[in-house]
């Protein structure tokens, strides 16, 4: 097995007040770097090998309501239109109400990070690959 490939180096960038197209969004999230994943060997025989893969995923997060109040119908319509525009640029949009965040912000943040990284918690990796970059 070849362990000469690099270590996992995964990063999360959280960019507040980011400009996306004609919109300024609350947060643009980027999950990027190098991951190491387990896959079956091509020769067959049920063997496994570890492969280095590039990761680059983005997501937009919007936090509604500076005063925790509910939106009007017109505000809701504008937000939906804005979400469609942002999604058409290729970015998933996660929108949370102020009262939702006020009640339990970590529930929302954990959901965002889990969906962005695809993991509830960090993946196991072989001891051989742990260590410095």
């Amino acid at each position, binding site marked *: 097995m070849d362990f000469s490939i690099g*270590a996992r*180096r*995964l*990063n*999360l*960038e*959280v*960019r*507040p*007040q980011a400009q996306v197209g004609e919109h300024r969004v*609350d*947060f643009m*999230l980027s*999950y*990027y*770097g190098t991951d190491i994943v387990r896959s079956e060997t091509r020769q067959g025989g049920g063997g496994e090998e570890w492969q280095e893969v590039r990761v680059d995923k983005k997501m937009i*997060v919007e*936090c509604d*309501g*500076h005063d*925790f109040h509910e939106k009007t119908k017109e505000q809701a319509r504008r937000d939906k239109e804005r979400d469609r525009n942002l999604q058409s640029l290729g970015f998933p949009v996660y929108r*949370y109400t*102020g009262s939702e*965040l*006020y*009640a*339990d*912000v*970590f*529930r*929302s*943040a*954990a959901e*965002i*990070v889990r969906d962005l*990284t695809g*993991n509830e*918690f*960090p993946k196991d990796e072989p001891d051989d690959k742990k*260590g*410095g*970059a």
Partner: protein
Amino acid sequence: MSNDSKRLAHQFASSLERWGGWESKSTGDTSHLTTDASSYVTNALSEDPLRTNRFEDRKDEWRQMVHLSRAFLNTCLIQQLDHWASGPGSLDELLDSLGSPIEALMLFSLILCGREHGLGVSVPFVWTLRNEKARGVFGFFDWCQTLES
């Protein structure tokens, strides 16, 4: 502190303790996540049962090192917190760039959740000071992590 600020801080702390991260999964007790860091250092070194053989076999020697380590770790934390709290690319500049307290709630929780996953977390921001725009990066990285463009 105003009542609104107290409520916001209380809601954040409550949500943080409910989430708990690894602490919640491993110990079921997340109360110390919201106590001050020096208490945590003291308790972690004194009471953590997952210690080396030295803890089992040479307790006197271990105890002396623990006393040394408390001051060292505490100072490391204070140094790091000081770097994060003020100066270029720091928390105070970052907070200035946000639009509302709700955004601060979300940002803080995203940073903590990202770090919980072992991710290097960076927050690039534009800070307006005296009508001039300055760019900064508020970052959390382990020694082995590098920032890639």
